[in-house]
């Protein structure tokens, strides 16, 4: 498997009236061909902005990629001209989004919305693109596709719309599919349908997938590797089994422990007290410092670097939770006014 994507020191900021929002703060990661990478984080963790920055899909202004490079298949996407990046989007990199209700244009038929990418990137004429659209819709499990192409998004259910989105994202046989919380707005039985569909299509087409989610459960079943983000930075990156079995970062650890599990009768959930930091006014040290049970004075002064602690397992933390003991039981209470 070759290296498909390499992101080095990517930094994205939003210049707002309240100040500079450091949405993505120096993240680096890679992705191999055919691989599935899960990016997990809460709202404001920078997981979506980070991945949108890859194909420069953030609103500019106020957003701006202020540093770093994105090497996709040997080319730096950050340095590309607008025309060059457009020929990558929707063509070699497909995307599906969170809310299938709002992500489809309500005034155009679904066929029209899929066909336009085919006509643009594959140089097809109307007849060819229509034929291919019907094939795509059938492939994503929309029965009677020939009759469905001329219908409008509001005539489909949420799950069906997400299938349309997938057909659209995959229309030009991309090498990489970016899935931004594609199941968050869906019911759990529909989520299972969509996850299964994407996995099957990935097997058939051999593309790599970046799956962004806030739900560790969803990526546990599908990802090869997982990146945990917090306040615009990578906290931990590891192969999926290692991450769940041997998480080393206090945040990852807390996140996993705070999840109620269907298969276990857990006692009290371990909760991470406090709130994420303000991205306009990030602390100098580790962004998780204020909520961390293991913190030491060094954490407040110096931002930990992402170190490889075992092959493929990277952690940005000054301490080792397996060796060091909890230093404060309720850190957040100290900060209370």
């Amino acid at each position, binding site marked *: 498997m070759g290296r498909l994507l390499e992101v080095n020191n990517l930094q994205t900021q939003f210049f707002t009236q309240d100040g500079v929002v450091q949405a993505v703060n120096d993240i680096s990661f890679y992705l191999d061909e055919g691989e599935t990478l899960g990016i997990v984080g809460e709202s404001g963790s920078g997981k979506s902005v980070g991945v949108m920055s890859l194909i420069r899909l953030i609103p500019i202004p106020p957003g701006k990629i202020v540093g770093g490079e994105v090497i996709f298949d040997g080319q730096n996407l950050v340095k590309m001209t607008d025309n060059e990046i457009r020929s990558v989007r929707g063509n070699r990199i497909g995307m599906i989004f969170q809310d299938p209700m709002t992500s489809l244009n309500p005034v155009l038929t679904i066929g029209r919305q899929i066909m336009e990418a085919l006509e643009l990137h594959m140089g097809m004429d109307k007849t060819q693109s229509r034929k291919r659209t019907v094939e795509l819709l059938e492939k994503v499990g929309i029965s009677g596709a020939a009759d469905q192409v001329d219908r409008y998004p509001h005539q489909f259910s949420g799950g069906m719309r997400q299938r349309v989105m997938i057909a659209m994202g995959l229309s030009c046989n991309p090498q990489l599919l970016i899935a931004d919380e594609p199941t968050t707005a869906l019911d759990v039985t*529909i989520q299972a349908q969509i996850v299964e569909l994407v996995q099957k299509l990935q097997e058939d087409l051999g593309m790599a997938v970046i799956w962004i989610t806030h739900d*560790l459960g969803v990526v546990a079943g599908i990802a090869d590797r997982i990146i945990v983000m917090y306040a615009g930075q990578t906290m931990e990156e590891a192969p*999926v089994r290692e991450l*769940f079995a041997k998480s080393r970062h206090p945040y990852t650890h807390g996140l996993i422990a705070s999840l109620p599990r*269907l*298969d276990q*009768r857990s006692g009290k*959930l371990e909760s991470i007290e406090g709130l994420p930091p303000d991205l306009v006014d990030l602390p100098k040290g580790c962004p998780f410092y204020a909520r961390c049970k293991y913190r030491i004075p060094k954490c407040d002064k110096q931002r930990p670097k992402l170190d490889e602690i075992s092959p493929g397992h990277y952690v940005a933390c000054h301490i080792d939770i397996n060796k060091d003991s909890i230093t404060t039981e309720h850190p957040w209470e100290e900060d209370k*006014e």
Partner: protein
Amino acid sequence: MAKEKEKDVLLHVENLKMYFPITKGIIFQKHVGDVKAADDLTFDIYRGETLGLVGESGCGKSTTGRAILQLYTPTAGKVIFRDADGDRDLAQTSGETLRRLRRQIQMIFQDPYASLNPRMTVGSIVSEPLEVHNIDNSAKRLKRVRELLNIVGLNPYFINRYPHEFSGGQRQRIGIARALALNPDFIVCDEPISALDVSIQAQVINLLEDLQDKFGLTYLFIAHDLSVVRHISDRIAVMYLGKIVELTESDELYANPLHPYTEALLSAVPIPDPAIEKKRQRIILEGDVPSPANPPQGCNFSTRCPKFIEGKCDTKDPAFQEVQPGHWVACYLYEGVHK
């Protein structure tokens, strides 16, 4: 837990129906059908327990909660509330009696952003129920508000701030403080954590559990996330398209699901453990939930059921019956199975 107090029923719901009429025409409204949001529900809630009500969007779980609280007027059925003063049917009470009963029954809403008045301070939001019911003088109320904020883990220092100055989790705490103000017996929690971030969800779940222990509260916990419901509930009712299809203790539901829909639902919930996930066999349901305005003939789940029996499931509704002690299910697969 619930076991010892099994007979101590706090709330008895019987044949509860909540239909929303579909009408046509502007001047002469013609009744052309009903959305059967809650269709003939019968269940008990025991004192001190948490009953989880779980189902997918549009299954009628929130409507059921609201119909119990009489926020909607139920189309039919009884909602009997039992306390020291005896049994009273909430569906038959109104006016002052209902208003007095409302003190004992409170609600926590899903959206902590929309359910707090943005122009009221935290203090006035929390003390409003006390004012409405004319409890205490203002000095005592202020003391009570400070106490409540402490209980839910908010600094009483924030009493004069406005909701927008708080995060989602903190707002949900404000909503909980408001619900607790009148010392209720029973709280309907309508998706109280689904708008919150993962690390904040656990904070709120723990708070709700602590409060239950402290004040002996009874919860009806409405949510779509089965993992959360399993964690917090003593018993779980699974709803599909306006009907309860299965009701039993939460461990039993996970270990021994009887209804095919429950099975599919359980298998669809991801477990945050890759070792388990790789081995799991998913039951993938075909298609979507039918419209509640036009439910299928027979069992509501018949159009998607993997264990569909032709000539039976598509003719008549299966009865909701107790097939094992404390385990109720509405499915033809268990017809004739007796407890």
